[in-house]
């Protein structure tokens, strides 16, 4: 989220919710949207393939064909550019590459967009006019946008629209992406991911060297831990296709097939291709599962041995911070001691770190601190989690976690009542701080940045320009912000590059003492001494520079986002006009089929009904937590699929009958049909939070005694169609096809 919920209540005049269902997935976020609607007459526009609970509260509801979000936004941009409604000043001074987007938008007349998306032209024109006239407007989205084969283009076209309308870096504007799990934002910031070190440092050698130094370990030792130095810089397997590493059905590009799977708090049954996952789980040499509730992966497999389940404590039995969707960090105090024989997640890691022989290196950093610009050992033993919080605060400079010291986070929790819900600003002892210190919070005195990229606020109070991340110029065009774009209170006028050891004196115009010169790091991201941030604070300057936001990503297959039909599209005529990507080699160590899968057959002939997944309010993620609660499981006692009565009668399915759903890969699930008006007769939607039944076969015998949840059911991901995003490899949950058959 570039802004926060309170900001929407305070300032937004229009909210475009596309590919998100906050009424079900984030009800408290929905409260803020409804408060904005009531208090400021904010216009709520909802774009969704299904008439969801969020759409029920919308002022304007647009029913879109799933997988055509880029086309829809281009439809809006077409009208915005044609009528000159774009914010020309903003684009000229702070954006790079908007002209190329303008060219592409020119093709997308309302008629073409209406044909592709299924939204009537008048609604497209109405929405474009409304967004052009009502400012500031914010855009809200979630997995409905990202879970597509064109997920990356989807998540780029929306900020591009906000840039065109000049809504970025404005109170009430911005892109408010609603995250899913409670600490998915925190776990993503810590990059529990295959393609980066914590803090989005990436996997380059420079980053590894910085982390070796920050962790207080010898880089060569760290390099020796890998199969060979080259594998240190290569992205690992992803959660979406690790099973290819086990099954080896296709070419994989890793130093070894995967033989052991370590699952710690990861609901495998909410992954796509569940049938393949089952095969992989059976083929593994070792499966370790560490969870508070039984991970239904242990039930999915009927392997006979080498399957271990470790009881782990929940977050209420330990202490630590959690990062909310608006980048605020909140402290959790320990409610009770771990129950039964459960151990906390970190104890499990320490236990095995000892066994694997790297416990000392593992915990060394917590016993160190920066003294006079040097990282030195300061104590013999560490205190969890405070020392880990300090280690993270001093290490992750890219996203500015410098301000997240344990003392500040704990103090904010004790005084959380002193913060204003609309502005997050603190009062009394908390004055001068924003609630949760939303990153970037550059140093121990920084209040946090509730609204990103707002140049009308001083840097030391949370303001900043766009980050200078893509070099100084591209194709001869200067990438820095225009000279007239000066962050309030900054001594440096106009755009300036990211601060490094070489350019600090020249950019900030202040001299470094010799001692400082000797201690300073190579650039602001790896400057352990903290001198760069000190200087930047004095100059009122953001260490990451003040540049232009780029709409063209020259490293991606689509520099300008393009509409490409989903892999299993319901419109064969459009597949030839807007084909998907060419097949991809070696992304996350696997090959991914795109065009070959899309053109393998005319899928819509055999699988006529569109398949969309949806959320129900009482289940989330793999649903295991909620299905083990007697009250929540009672709200949805069975797995079901919403189907329009007309479509149901075509197959002779009455309300409550069972039906088979077949997928293009040949898998099938047996679910209860629920007649429902929220879907149109050409599509069905079903929740993805059930597990425990696999293609009609009940897996109850596989549950250890006493761990079976109150409700089990088919996992909709058994029939999620094959398809992955070209950059992030996120599966295409939300755009697929299926065939209905009366059970």
């Amino acid at each position: 989220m570039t802004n926060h919920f309170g900001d929407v209540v305070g300032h937004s005049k229009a909210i475009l919710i596309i590919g998100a269902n906050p009424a079900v997935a984030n009800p408290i976020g929905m409260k803020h949207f409804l408060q904005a609607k009531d208090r400021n007459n904010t216009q709520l526009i909802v774009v969704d393939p299904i008439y969801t609970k969020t759409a029920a509260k919308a002022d304007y509801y647009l029913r879109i064909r799933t997988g055509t979000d880029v086309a829809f936004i281009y439809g809006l941009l077409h009208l915005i550019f044609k009528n000159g409604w774009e914010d020309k000043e903003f684009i000229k001074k702070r954006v790079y590459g908007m002209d190329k987007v303008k060219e592409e938008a020119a093709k997308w007349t309302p008629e073409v967009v209406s044909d592709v998306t299924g939204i009537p032209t008048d609604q497209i024109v109405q929405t474009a006019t409304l967004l052009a006239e009502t400012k500031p407007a914010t855009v809200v989205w979630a997995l409905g946008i990202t879970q597509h084969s064109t997920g990356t283009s989807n998540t780029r076209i929306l900020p591009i629209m906000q840039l065109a309308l000049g809504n970025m870096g404005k109170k009430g504007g911005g892109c408010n992406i609603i995250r899913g799990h409670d600490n998915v934002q925190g776990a993503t910031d810590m990059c529990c991911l295959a393609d980066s070190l914590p803090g989005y440092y990436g996997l380059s050698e420079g980053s590894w060297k910085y982390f070796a130094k920050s962790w207080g370990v010898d880089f060569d030792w760290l390099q020796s831990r890998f199969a060979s130095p080259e594998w240190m810089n290569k992205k690992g397997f992803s959660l979406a296709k690790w099973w290819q590493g086990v099954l080896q059905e296709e070419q994989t590009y890793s130093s070894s097939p995967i033989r052991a799977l370590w699952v710690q708090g990861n609901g495998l049954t909410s992954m796509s291709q569940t049938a393949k996952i089952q095969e992989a789980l059976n083929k593994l040499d070792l499966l370790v599962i560490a969870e508070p509730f039984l991970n239904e992966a242990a039930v999915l497999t009927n392997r006979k041995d080498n399957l271990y389940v470790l009881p782990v404590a929940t977050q209420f039995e330990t202490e630590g911070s959690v990062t909310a969707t608006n980048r605020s960090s909140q402290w959790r105090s320990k409610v009770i001691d771990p129950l039964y024989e459960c151990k906390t997640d970190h104890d499990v890691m320490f236990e095995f770190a000892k066994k694997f022989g790297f416990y000392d290196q593992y915990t060394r950093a917590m016993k160190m601190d920066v003294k006079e610009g040097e990282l030195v050992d300061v104590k013999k033993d560490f205190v969890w989690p405070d020392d880990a919080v300090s280690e993270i605060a001093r290490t992750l400079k890219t996203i500015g976690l410098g301000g997240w010291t344990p003392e500040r986070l704990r103090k904010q929790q004790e005084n959380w009542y002193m913060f204003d819900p609309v502005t997050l600003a603190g009062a009394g002892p908390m004055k001068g701080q924003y609630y949760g210190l939303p990153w970037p919070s550059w140093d121990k005195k920084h209040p946090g940045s509730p609204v990103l990229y707002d140049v009308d606020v001083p840097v030391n109070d949370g303001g900043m320009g766009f980050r200078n991340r893509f070099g100084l110029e591209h194709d001869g065009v200067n990438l820095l912000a225009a000279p007239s774009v000066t962050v309030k209170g900054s001594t440096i006028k106009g755009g300036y590059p990211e601060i490094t050891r070489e350019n600090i004196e020249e950019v900030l115009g202040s001299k470094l003492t010799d001692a400082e010169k000797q201690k300073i790091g190579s650039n602001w991201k790896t400057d352990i001494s903290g001198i760069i941030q000190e200087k930047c604070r004095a100059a009122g300057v953001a260490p990451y520079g003040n540049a232009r936001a780029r709409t063209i990503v020259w490293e991606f297959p689509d520099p300008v986002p393009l509409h490409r039909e989903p892999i299993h599209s319901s419109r064969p005529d459009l597949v030839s006009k807007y084909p998907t990507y060419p097949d991809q080699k070696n992304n996350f160590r696997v090959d991914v089929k795109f065009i070959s899968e899309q053109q393998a057959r005319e899928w819509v002939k055999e699988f006529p009904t569109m398949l969309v997944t949806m959320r129900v309010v009482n289940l989330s993620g793999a649903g295991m937590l909620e299905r083990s609660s007697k009250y929540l499981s009672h709200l949805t006692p069975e797995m079901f699929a919403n189907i329009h009565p007309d479509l149901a009668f075509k197959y002779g399915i009455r309300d409550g009958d069972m039906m088979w759903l077949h997928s293009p890969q040949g898998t099938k699930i047996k679910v209860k049909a629920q007649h429902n008006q929220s879907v149109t007769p050409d599509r069905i939607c079903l929740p993805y939070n059930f597990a425990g039944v696999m293609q009609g076969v009940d897996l109850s015998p596989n549950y250890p005694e006493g761990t079976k949840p109150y409700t089990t059911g088919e996992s909709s991901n058994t029939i999620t169609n094959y398809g992955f995003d070209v950059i992030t490899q996120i599966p295409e949950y939300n755009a697929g096809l299926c065939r209905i058959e009366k059970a």
Partner: protein
Amino acid sequence: MSSETSRMKFMCDSSRCIQCFACSVACAEAHDLPVGISRRKVVTLHEGVEGKEVSVSIACMHCSDPPCAKVCPVDCFYIREDGIVLHDKKKCIGCGYCLYACPFGAPQFPRDGAFGMRGVMDKCTMCAGGPEKTNSAEERRFYGQNRIAEGKVPICAAVCATNALLVGDAEDVSAIYRKRTSSRGKGE
């Protein structure tokens, strides 16, 4: 018994209710109700019909002139000074007349006894417990928490995700709702 003093009332703003079940699960959790017995229910009408779908949370409305109290053959109801309609589970015989009289279907009948026969009636107490000693273990066993006695707000309205469900003195509740509807559609 004069009605000048405050009369506690519920009111659900259906333009805010998103059927998130926080109220009914909060009530069930707070009072340890058996599964399937929900003193507070959330009902959605015209689900999925564009422009017509509306949700509302409904439970005992603590009527000023409660039909349940009038039809009870053992007269186990008593109405508090602040208008909260409560009943005595030790007197109730579980006949069901109060359910027939209630326009909102608030009374619930948990199963108890050997043959799973219908037990005594259970209904929303507006978190004000029952005739037993306030905040005693026995009161909590029969009626659940007595939050009103603790000076706290009833749990369902306190945790409503979108502040749709309002509870309190009738005047205060209507003042909040009036303020909200006055700005709706026009802005402050």
